[in-house]
C-alpha cells in the first residue's frame, strides 16, 4: 500500500512562501510526476513528503496515518537523489545493503535481497566496486537498488536523470517505467522535463510558483490545458499563442494552437507567412514561419516536406484543435 494525501500543506522559508497551500491525493500504485520550471517548488514538495523538510502547516498522511511530524525513516519511503547520493566509501554491495542493515535484518536475508536487486538492475558484476568506479547510469541504478531493497510504500525520485546524457536518459526512462510495472509501487517523480512527464506519468501535477496549476493524465493535460501556463508547458515544441484581432474573432483574448495542429500549404490558407528557420529531425520537420497576421508560428510537418528558408507559405490551424483563453489566461470552454 502507498496512498499519500496532502492536506493544506504549506511551506515557508522565513518570510518567503515557497508553497502557499496544496491539497493533493496520490493513489496507491500510481506513477505521479511533479513537473514545472526551476524554482516552482516541486523539489520542496517532494522533500516535504519525504520528511527532509518540515511543513509550516497542514498535514501529510500515508495510508491514512498522519506522518507530518515523523522522521524520514519512519515514513517507509525511499528516495533517489539527483546526485545519486551514494556512500563513496562503501562498495556497491554495501550501498544497497545499507538500509537493510539499518533495519536490523539478518545477514542471510540481506545477502539474498541485495543479490536479487542487483540482478534486476544488471549490477551483479559490479557489487564489489566503489561508486567512483561506475558510470553515471550504473550509479543511478545503484541508487535505485538501494531504494528497492527496502520494499518501501512509495519511491520518491528527485530529478534522477538530469545528470545523464540524452541517450542514457532515454534508456533509464524506460527502465524506471518498466520497474514501476514490475513493482506496482507508488512512485513520485520530480522533473522539469515535460517529455519525461508525458512519457512516464499516470498522473501529472503541473506546478508553478508553488501552486498546482493542473492535475491530470498526460493526455488530459495535452488535450485540455486549464490555462495558458499548462498549455505552454506541456507539449513539445511549445504551443503557439496568438493574440489581437485573430483571437478576438474567435471570442478569446489569446488562442493557442499546437505545431502539430497546423496545416501548411503553398497555395492557400488563413495565415500567410515566410519561412524562417527549418529544423529537420528526420521523422519530423519544424518550420518557424513569420506571419504578419499571427506573429512567429512553429508548425510541424513530416520529415519529407521540401520547403526552404524565405519561401512563402500559408498556415491553417485545425479548427477543432484551437484552445481559447480569456484575459486572465484561463481556458474558455
Amino acid at each position, binding site marked *: 500500500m502507498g496512498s499519500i494525501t496532502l492536506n493544506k500543506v504549506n511551506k515557508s522559508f522565513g518570510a518567503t512562501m515557497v508553497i502557499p497551500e496544496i491539497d493533493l491525493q496520490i493513489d496507491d500504485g500510481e506513477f505521479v510526476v511533479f513537473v514545472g520550471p526551476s524554482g516552482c517548488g516541486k523539489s520542496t514538495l517532494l522533500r516535504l513528503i*519525504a520528511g*527532509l523538510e518540515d511543513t509550516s502547516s497542514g498535514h501529510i498522511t500515508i495510508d491514512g496515518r498522519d506522518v507530518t511530524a515523523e*522522521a*524520514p*525513516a519512519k515514513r517507509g*519511503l*525511499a*528516495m533517489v*537523489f*539527483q*546526485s545519486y*547520493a*551514494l*556512500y*563513496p*566509501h562503501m562498495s556497491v554491495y554495501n550501498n544497497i545493503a*545499507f*538500509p537493510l542493515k*539499518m*533495519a536490523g535484518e539478518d545477514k542471510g536475508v540481506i545477502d539474498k535481497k541485495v543479490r536479487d536487486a542487483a540482478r534486476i538492475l544488471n549490477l551483479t558484476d559490479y557489487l564489489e566496486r566503489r561508486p567512483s568506479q561506475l558510470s553515471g547510469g550504473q550509479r543511478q541504478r545503484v541508487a535505485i537498488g*538501494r531504494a528497492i531493497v*527496502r520494499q518501501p510504500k512509495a519511491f520518491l525520485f528527485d530529478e534522477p536523470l538530469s545528470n545523464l546524457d540524452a541517450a542514457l536518459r532515454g534508456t533509464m526512462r524506460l527502465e524506471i517505467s518498466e520497474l514501476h510495472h514490475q513493482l506496482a509501487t507508488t512512485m513520485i517523480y520530480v522533473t522539469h522535463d515535460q517529455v519525461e512527464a508525458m512519457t512516464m506519468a499516470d498522473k501529472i501535477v503541473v506546478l508553478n510558483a508553488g501552486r498546482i496549476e493542473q492535475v491530470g493524465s498526460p493526455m488530459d493535460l495535452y488535450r485540455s490545458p486549464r490555462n495558458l501556463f499548462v498549455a505552454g508547458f506541456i507539449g513539445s515544441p511549445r504551443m503557439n499563442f496568438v493574440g489581437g484581432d485573430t483571437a478576438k474573432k474567435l471570442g478569446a483574448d489569446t488562442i493557442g494552437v499546437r505545431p502539430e495542429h497546423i496545416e501548411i500549404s503553398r497555395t492557400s490558407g488563413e495565415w500567410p507567412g515566410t519561412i524562417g528557420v527549418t529544423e529537420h529531425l528526420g521523422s519530423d520537420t519544424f518550420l518557424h514561419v513569420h506571419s504578419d497576421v499571427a506573429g512567429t508560428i512553429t508548425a510541424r510537418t513530416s520529415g519529407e516536406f521540401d520547403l526552404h528558408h524565405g519561401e512563402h507559405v500559408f498556415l491553417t490551424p485545425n479548427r477543432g484543435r484551437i484552445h481559447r483563453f480569456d484575459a486572465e489566461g484561463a481556458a474558455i470552454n
Partner: protein
Amino acid sequence: MARAVTTRHKITATTAAWVVAFLIFFPILYTILTSFKTEAEAIAGVSLIPSGTFENYVEVQSQRDYFKPFANSVIISVGSTLIALLIGIPAAWSMAFSPTRRTKDVLMWMLSTKMMPAVGVLVPMYLLFRDTGLLDTTSGLTMVLTLINLPIVIWMLYTYFREIPGEILEAARMDGASLFNEIVYVLTPMAVPGIASTMLLNIILAWNEAFWTIRLSAANAAPLTAFIASFSSPQGLFWAKLSAASTLAIAPILIMGWFSQKQLVRGLTFGAVK
C-alpha cells in the same frame, strides 16, 4: 592552444622549486650543521662544513634533562589537539550542516581572534594563571594551546565538512539511519582524512608554539621550546649547544611531518581543487 611543456621549461621549473625549497629549509639545515660544530667554529662565521663533533649533544644531555621537556611537549601538544578536536568537531558539524545567517560572522569572529597580537593579553593572562595556580602546569599550557588553536581547528574542519554533500546525509536519513548511525557509518568515514590532517597540523602548531609556553612555564611544565630558550641564558650564548638543543626539539616533529606529509598536504589544500 594548449601550452607546450618543453623539457627546458620543466628543468627551469624544477630548478626554481628546488631553490625555493632549499631557501625555506636553509635555517633548519644550518641549525643542524651548527649543532655538529664546536663553540669556536660556531661563532667564527658562516661555514657549511662542521667538524662533526657530537660533544654538543652530550653536553646538552648532561647539563639539562631532555626527556622531561620532551614529555611535556608531547602532553601539551597531543592533549590540546584532542581537546580542540572534541570541541571543534561538533562546532564545525553544526556550522557546516545547519548554518544560520550568522554562521559566517561567527567564523570570521573566531578567525579575528588570531589577528590579535598575543602580547596584548600577556599581562592579564599571566595574572590569571598566577592567581588560579595554573602557572607552570601542563594542564594550564594545554588549556592555552587549545584555545589559541581552536579557531584554526574549527576552520579546517568546517571547510572539510562543507565538502561532504548534504544529500548523502539525507540519503542516510531516508535509509533509516539514526543520528548515531549516520555519524558512525556515513559521516565519520567520509570525514576521517579531514580530521586526521587537522590533527596533524594542530600537533605541529602546538609543538612549535613558543610565546605562551615559554612565558607561562618555569621548571615543571617547561616543554622543548623552553628547553631551547634556556640555552641562551646567564652564562652567555652557546650557539652550538643551542643548535643541538633545537635539533633535538624539532627532530620528533620533523620525523612525524615527514611520514605524514601526504596527509598534511591534502589537509592544507582541500577545498582548493575540485
